[in-house]
């Protein structure tokens, strides 16, 4: 199909300083866990977005000095010639795909923990980080300030050498230049603190110096947060940001405008639970209104109508995406080709970000199982090879996220016939009700995207309302059987804190329930008060509490953990979720584990109370968000009762299981599991994942000799 003319504006080229971007799609800096030290993973990940039509693609935050080392988290680094070499692969691959490469020069100041480099960062004032524990910066004197500015200049030159077209002087997310601009971080009384002019001085001078050094060859981008939501002490749009735009607009080639500081950067990388797409547009438009330079900005953009509208209404020049470009690196191409229903829309769950927050592991994506696997597993999100055993018929039992993904990929790999059989009347499994939890509506995209794709695949047939017994499966006529029957919430209080059930816990009773029963079966608990017991630690417990509180119940949220929904800290949902629960009057009881329940009462003890004093909590009902268990009855019956040999006699050559049926996990990982099996359905043993490429240094004879000699030389003549 052809592009809708109303989206033509998105494909108009735009001048950025000395460079031209071929269209308006730009991948804004975002982490992926690869940095400069996994250069192939980095380059393949970024290059795929260029292949998908993005005209500009940035690194993640790229450290300019060992003083700004963000370990445990993974940043890129442009410290030396080795980093230049490694990052130049990304630049080359982007240029081969007709895209510009951008490098986000980063210095963290007090936020940099320097756990690997063991250096100490410099910053405007000596106040420890509001994001990290135990990190203090040196309060920079004038010499330090010159030193810092020179770090930017030298890093910019290295970025130019690596082949970058756009160089950032990055301030957003409360990093060094914006720390100087912001009274919250800057308590100085010299010419770098106090008045706007003084607070702006560090950033202005640094931009001038970087422009002077590389401005003829590279476009200069400034990324600024236009509201930190920190009240008077934070950066203010009208007081600080608009005057700053006027001050340096002549030096800047493109503005990257966003929101938030680092401690609550979920206000920038907005979870769909709290914000719709385009949430930063009013701030971006305010900058656009006074700047003569192009303005780019994020907004979790997946809807081309809204993108075009933002440009047509003069609010933005360039559509910057981070999460949507990971969820679908081919977003621009699909818009260009009018294939809107093929867009794998970001659901705004932020599990991608959770991996950065955890520190270290590569990013993952709920919607795109191939994200992060471009190099190490060689997975392309849009290309599928015909399976070597494509002449087989496959039965997938269960159409939750894992089953849907597996059937879809098997269909795309050309299996002769794929039957996706479901006991319920439609696809989705638990993901049919999860989007009905407060704020999670956009998560329905997980099911909707796959439903549309499956419908297009002529070799895949969806069969609803069919509950298969093990005998039915054995006699179904498939050579390959994949069990994807999901998981359920434990009904007896079994949990990972005590590794035991809880006395009196029994969700078959009228006054107790699990999320499956409440959301999937419509079970209602009588009475005014309820205890939600949560030892899952992600969204289910807090969502049940929120839902029941919204329905008017007095809710106590009890957890053996130190905080409710701790994983939501990593997805940036925690701060606003805490606000929601607080506003709804949910009573939070951390560090408590029920010892027994009886009708009208939950009896619990503090987990660190060695004497085990019991405390009673009156409650008309109890909801168990204790742990999940695999729905493995069908798999066990097939494998143990019927047996692989008998299955073989019936023509079933292979039996596998995927997703929660194997072990409960994040939806992203369940989807990955279905995808992985389908990608490797023709391997020697598809039940065992193929090894992936690991980017690591390899020891060889030459390096051993050299390293040993270098070490010995250090101590030549030294006394012991």
């Amino acid at each position, binding site marked *: *199909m052809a592009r809708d003319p109303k989206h033509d504006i998105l494909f108009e080229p735009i001048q950025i300083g000395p460079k031209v971007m071929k269209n308006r799609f730009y991948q804004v800096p975002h982490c992926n866990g690869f940095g400069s030290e996994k250069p192939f993973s980095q380059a393949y990940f970024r290059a795929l977005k260029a292949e998908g039509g993005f005209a500009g693609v940035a690194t993640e935050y790229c450290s300019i000095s060992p003083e700004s080392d963000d370990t445990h988290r993974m940043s890129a680094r442009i410290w030396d010639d080795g980093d230049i070499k490694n990052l130049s692969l990304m630049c080359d691959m982007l240029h081969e795909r007709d895209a510009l490469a951008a490098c986000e020069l980063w210095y963290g100041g007090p936020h940099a923990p320097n756990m690997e480099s063991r250096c100490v960062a410099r910053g405007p004032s000596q106040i420890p980080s509001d994001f990290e524990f135990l990190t203090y910066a040196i309060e920079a004197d004038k010499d330090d300030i010159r030193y810092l500015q020179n770090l930017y200049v030298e890093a910019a030159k290295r970025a130019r050498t690596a082949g970058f077209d756009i160089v950032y002087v990055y301030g957003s997310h409360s990093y060094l230049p914006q720390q100087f601009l912001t009274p919250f971080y800057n308590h100085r009384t010299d010419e770098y603190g106090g008045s706007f002019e003084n607070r702006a001085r560090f950033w202005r001078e640094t931009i001038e110096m970087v422009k002077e050094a590389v401005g003829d060859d590279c476009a200069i981008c400034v990324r600024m947060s236009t509201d930190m939501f920190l009240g008077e002490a934070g950066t203010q749009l009208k007081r600080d940001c608009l005057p700053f735009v006027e001050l340096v607009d002549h030096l800047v080639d493109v503005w990257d405008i966003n929101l938030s500081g680092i401690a609550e950067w979920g206000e920038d990388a907005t979870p769909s639970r709290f914000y719709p797409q385009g949430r930063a547009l009013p701030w971006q438009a305010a900058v656009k209104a006074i700047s003569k330079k192009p303005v780019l900005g994020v907004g979790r953009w997946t809807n081309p109508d809204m993108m075009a509208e933002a440009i047509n209404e003069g609010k933005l020049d360039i559509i910057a995406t981070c999460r949507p470009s990971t969820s679908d690196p081919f977003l621009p191409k699909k818009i260009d080709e009018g294939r809107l229903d093929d867009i794998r829309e970001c659901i705004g769950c932020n599990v991608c970000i959770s991996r950065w927050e955890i520190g270290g592991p590569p990013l993952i994506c709920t919607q795109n199982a191939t994200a992060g696997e471009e190099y190490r597993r060689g997975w392309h999100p849009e290309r599928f090879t015909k399976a070597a055993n494509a002449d087989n*018929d496959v*039965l997938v039992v269960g159409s939750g996220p894992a089953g849907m993904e597996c059937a879809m990929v098997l269909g795309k790999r050309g299996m002769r*016939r794929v*039957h996706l059989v479901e006991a319920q009347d439609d696809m989705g499994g638990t993901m049919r009700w999860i989007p009905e939890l407060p704020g999670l509506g956009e998560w329905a995209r997980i099911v909707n995207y796959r439903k549309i794709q499956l419908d297009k695949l*002529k070799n895949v*047939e969806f*069969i609803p*309302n*069919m509950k298969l017994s093990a005998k*039915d499966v054995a*006699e*179904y*006529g*498939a050579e390959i059987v994949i069990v994807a029957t999901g998981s359920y919430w434990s009904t007896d209080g079994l949990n990972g804190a005590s590794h035991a059930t809880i006395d009196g816990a029994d969700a078959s009773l009228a006054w107790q329930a699990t999320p499956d029963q409440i959301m999937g079966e419509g079970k209602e608990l009588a009475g005014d008060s309820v205890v939600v017991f949560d030892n899952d630690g992600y969204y289910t417990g807090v969502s049940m509490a929120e839902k029941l509180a919204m329905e008017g119940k007095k809710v106590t949220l009890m957890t053996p953990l130190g905080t409710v929904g701790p994983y939501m800290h990593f997805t940036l949902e925690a701060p606003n979720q805490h606000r929601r629960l607080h506003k709804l009057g949910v009573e939070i009881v951390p560090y408590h584990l029920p010892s027994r329940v009886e009708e009208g009462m939950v009896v619990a003890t503090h987990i660190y109370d060695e004497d085990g004093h019991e405390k009673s909590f009156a409650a008309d009902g109890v909801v168990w968000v204790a742990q999940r268990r695999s729905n493995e009855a069908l798999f066990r019956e097939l494998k143990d009762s019927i047996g692989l040999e008998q299955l073989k006699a019936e*023509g079933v050559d292979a039996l596998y299981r995927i997703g929660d049926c194997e072990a409960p996990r994040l939806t992203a990982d369940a989807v990955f599991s279905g995808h992985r099996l389908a990608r490797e359905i023709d391997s020697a043993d598809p039940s065992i994942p193929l090894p992936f490429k690991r980017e690591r240094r390899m020891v060889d004879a030459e390096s051993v000799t050299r390293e040993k000699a270098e070490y010995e030389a250090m101590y030549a003549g030294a006394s012991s």
Partner: protein
Amino acid sequence: MRTVVCIKQVLQLGDEVEFTDDGLDVDPEYLDPALNEWDSFATEEALQLRERLGGEVVVVTCGPKQSEAALRRCLAMGADRAIRVEGAGRDPFSVARALAGVVRGESADLVLCGVQSSDAVQAATGTALAELLDLPRAAVITRLDYSGAGTAVVDRELEGGLIDRVEVETPAVLTIQTGINEPRYANLRAIKQAEQVEIDVRSAAGGGTPAYRIRKMFVPERGEGAEMIDGSPAEIAARIASIVKERLA
């Protein structure tokens, strides 16, 4: 007890459409073949009759070799035999004449058709077939009560949710409405077995006047006068409400 089910492989349009160079048909590239939805209900009804009363279910279609996929779908559901008639035209009269030739030789107790096909949407073939066979017919059947001989009691769906319950002498031609039952899915084993069944292929007798000739197939010009409503959800809702009130007044 023998039930003959007349089925059709329909050609479904996707999102896009292009026409053949002569402008008389849709380019086959843009069409997906499938068993007509109504006919899957008719087949299911015949299978349920056989399960109750014994006997045989015979499925018949008119069409090229490709349309055997639809017959095999019915065989996989459980039909006993399949017959394909080649060389008939595609209009309802030509198809009905070709089907009548086969049905006459089957001494059917009941002949079931779908109410209509989803691609041509004429609802004419079943009725024309009854006329040619000189059998009673009842259309748009939502319930069938038949004990294997004599009269069948059937519910016919009328406008506005009304039901017309009538007695029909058998043999008869009944056109079956969707929703009368829940068509079964064939498992892969049945689909594979159906692939091995030999289909009885016959030639249409030919002759006779077609119901119509296609002169041109085209996408109608887009009309004018659509109103795009902009604004907040509340503003849009208010505007829609006022339009509805205006039109109802």
